[in-house]
């Protein structure tokens, strides 16, 4: 009897052990899933929220500038200040020399203008504007080909800058040094408007859409050296 009893007891103990292990297995799997989910969520938060915040530093332009106000004053739209030179090259951001034509002295009681005149006009220092659309040095872009020949308007690439009453905060990519405007505000690279991004794909998309085959005379295709010189 005792032997049978003993056997019965042993079998009961084994069942108990198996049952405990089963309980323990169920608990570990839960943790694995839990930590997986935690890691997953954390990385999503980092990737979508923390990363963009860490990647870009925010900088103020040296002078507060009101495009809308100036557009009302000038006669020739954007080209009044952002003009083509006689040799067809594009002047880009205006030099102090152009600003001085109107702002040699403070005209009103705007403190931004007073700051501009005292810091730059009187000291004959060029304003170190931060350029949102600045491309890497290996990129060659002809404004003349797009604006004068293809008759594109400024807004297509630059957006409605002329309507802005203040300059947006300049977000500088800490790795590349270029503006966030090039990659686009949307960190996923999605865009709604043609001016939301300024990457190579955006150039290519537009060229494809417009069936532009004049970039390379030889191949009638968009060749590398047309833009990368």
């Amino acid at each position, binding site marked *: 009897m005792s032997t049978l009893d003993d056997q019965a007891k042993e079998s009961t103990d084994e069942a108990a052990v198996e049952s405990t292990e089963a309980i323990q297995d169920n608990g*570990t799997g839960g*943790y694995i899933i839990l*930590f997986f989910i935690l*890691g*997953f969520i954390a*990385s999503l938060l980092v990737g979508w929220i923390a990363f963009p915040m860490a990647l870009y530093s925010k900088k103020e332009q040296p002078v507060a500038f009101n495009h809308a106000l100036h557009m009302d004053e000038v006669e020739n739209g954007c080209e009044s200040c952002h003009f083509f030179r006689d040799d067809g090259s594009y002047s880009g951001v205006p030099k102090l020399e152009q600003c001085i034509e109107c702002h040699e002295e403070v005209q009103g009681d705007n403190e931004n203008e007073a700051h501009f005149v005292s810091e730059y006009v009187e000291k004959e220092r060029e304003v170190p504007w931060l350029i949102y659309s600045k491309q*890497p*040095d*290996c990129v060659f872009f002809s404004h003349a080909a797009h604006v004068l020949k293809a008759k594109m308007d400024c807004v297509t690439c630059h957006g409605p800058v002329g309507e802005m009453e203040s300059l947006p905060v300049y977000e500088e990519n800490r790795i590349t040094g270029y503006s966030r405007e090039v990659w686009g505000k949307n960190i996923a690279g999605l865009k709604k408007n043609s001016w939301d991004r300024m990457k190579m794909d955006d150039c290519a998309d537009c060229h494809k859409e417009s069936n532009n085959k004049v970039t390379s005379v030889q191949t009638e295709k968009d060749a590398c050296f047309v833009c990368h010189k």
Partner: protein
Amino acid sequence: MSFLSFAVGGAAGTALTPMPLKLMDDSSIWTQMWPWIPVPQDGEVSYENSVCTLCPGHCGITVKKVENRVVKIEGMKGHPVNDGGICLLGLAGVQLLYGSRRVKTPLKKVNGKFVKISWDEAVTEVASTIETMREKGDAHKIGCLSGTNRGTVPELLKRLLWVCGSLNFFHMPSVQDSYEITLRMMQGGSAMAGFDLENSDHVISFGSGILDGWGSPVRMFRAHSLWREKGARFIQVESRLSNTAAKADKWVPVNPGTEGALALGIAAVIIDESLYKTDFVDNYSSGFDSWKRQVTNNYTPEIVSKITGVDKSLILLTARDFGRAKNPLALCGRGEGSIPGSIKDFKAVHALNALVGNINQQGGVWAIPEPDYINWPEPTLDEAASAGVSKGRIDGAGKGKYRLAQSLFNRLPEIVNSKASSPPDVLFVSGANPLYTIPDTVAMNEALNNVKIISFSSYMDETADKADLILPNHVFLERYEDVPASAGLNQPITGLSKPVVSPQFNTRHVGDVIIQVAKKLGGHIGDAFPWSDYKTCLEETLGDKWEALNQTGFVTEADFNPTNDMSGFKTDSGRFEFLENGSVAEVLFSSVKPEGDEASYPLTLVPFDSMRLTGGYIGNPPYLMKTVEDTVLKGNDVLVEVNPKTASKYKLADGEKAFLMTPKGKACVKIYHYEGIKPGLIGLARGLGHNVNDRFLAGKGVNVNQLMGSKEDTGSGLDAAWGIRAKLVKA
């Protein structure tokens, strides 16, 4: 386990964020932005006209700028010298503006090392040095060496010395000095030699590197092209198959140093066969009969053939072609013309020109009047200055046997060694680098050991490095300067070098420094410099020309045309003098023997010039250095040209290293077997072997001037050495 699952979850989540793609994109852009990658300047393009002063050619240049940065130097279209063309050195001139060789601030040597000082301290130091010399009664021991003797800057330097009490203003010698002396002897008066190259139909060059830097190099290239187009003949007389000889219609290989004898031999044939212009000889020359007798007796084709090594038939053929040409022209001065040479050679060649009647004729040699726009009032001298001036020049120039020379800086080592006259105690150096460019640099270095050198060099060159004080001048793209005359041009011209960019460093115009030093010294010295600054001085001096010079960059005399004008001879006879003062005893040719004895040094070293190397005070800019052929410089090794026959005699294989030894020095070289050089000669390029703090220039090859000696010309006192005895020993 939990960390692993967190990491896996994190990885999976990260894959669903834009982070990997974005980081990859940013990283690729980042790798294209290394700070050492040069980025072209962006901005407005503009062009400014100026004049290049890197050689005596003085080409007009159009400088292309992007914003305030010079990006390219182009030849100025419509300029009388170069009409849009430019040479390699001029193109690479941008690197002389931005290169690392520049002296960026005034420097003073203290305990053997340069320390930075302010401009006020520098000017005060110069003024007090002059003051001390004057107080000691040693004003005459202040000297100045300038790259040129023409223009307001050399005149300001000369004036400063003069009012302080010294006449010891020197300029770097060249074939222009030899031609001026030749014209003074044969035509009288003071004039520069101009050549109507473009209108000549037959040119013989007696060793002149027409395509190797002689005269105004770009003009010479253009003239050569023109000769090809219109079928003009071009003969090169030279001991080595240079680029010029290779491009000539005929190369006459001559024994080096005997070019003058060949000119006389050609003259003898022309006289013998009555091919000379009797109209000129009979009506406008003097001493022809005596000269003719000497030439026909002593320089027959047979005799000349023996002297020159040129076949008699070739002498006859060359002479007949030259004599029968409509507008023949003979040129003289070896290589690029940095060594003046023997006056007898120049006289022989000039007499040959006269013989064919091309003096002041279309396609011939013209006497170009010296620039005359600098007319400052004579300064008053105080007692110390008068005493100093009365002691005259230390080099003897302008007196006795050196009466025809204006400046003989090559005599300085001899003066120091012989103690015949007092060597300078203080030497200003402007636009010159004598410790590199003057043959026998070792002797020159020793001669300057006890001299306080005050350098105005823009670059840390060999002389600046030895200087006690450096007051760096702006470089040619940063400063105003009048540029009178262009070497060999057939018209008077004045150019204006203009600042096309603001000074890049803490440098100052040498003209401003001179005026400031004079004002610091005050009294009669300050009074002699009434201008507030150099620009004012220049503007007032140029007067009516200033406006035109600012607009176009140059002014010429449009109505200048001396053709058929035979009234300009200012000799005693009023005619062209074939012999000096009609002297029948004048020896027409004497070979300038190379220094060294033949037994110890069986070979002869002959320096040669090239458009790819500048042998002047400015060393090769990096881009120019990249163009040097690997038959001249391989790595840092210099190659010497040796005829295969000579190489075989001394068992020197092609590419083998050897020691090149001359009485003046020794250098390690590589052998280059070259059939274009006569047996017995060793060809070595001029312009290598700089010893300066510039990795693009220093340590490359050997400076031929450290192996060369100076040989005083009996007719002028200028250096006439064309070579030196040498030997090659296996390394």
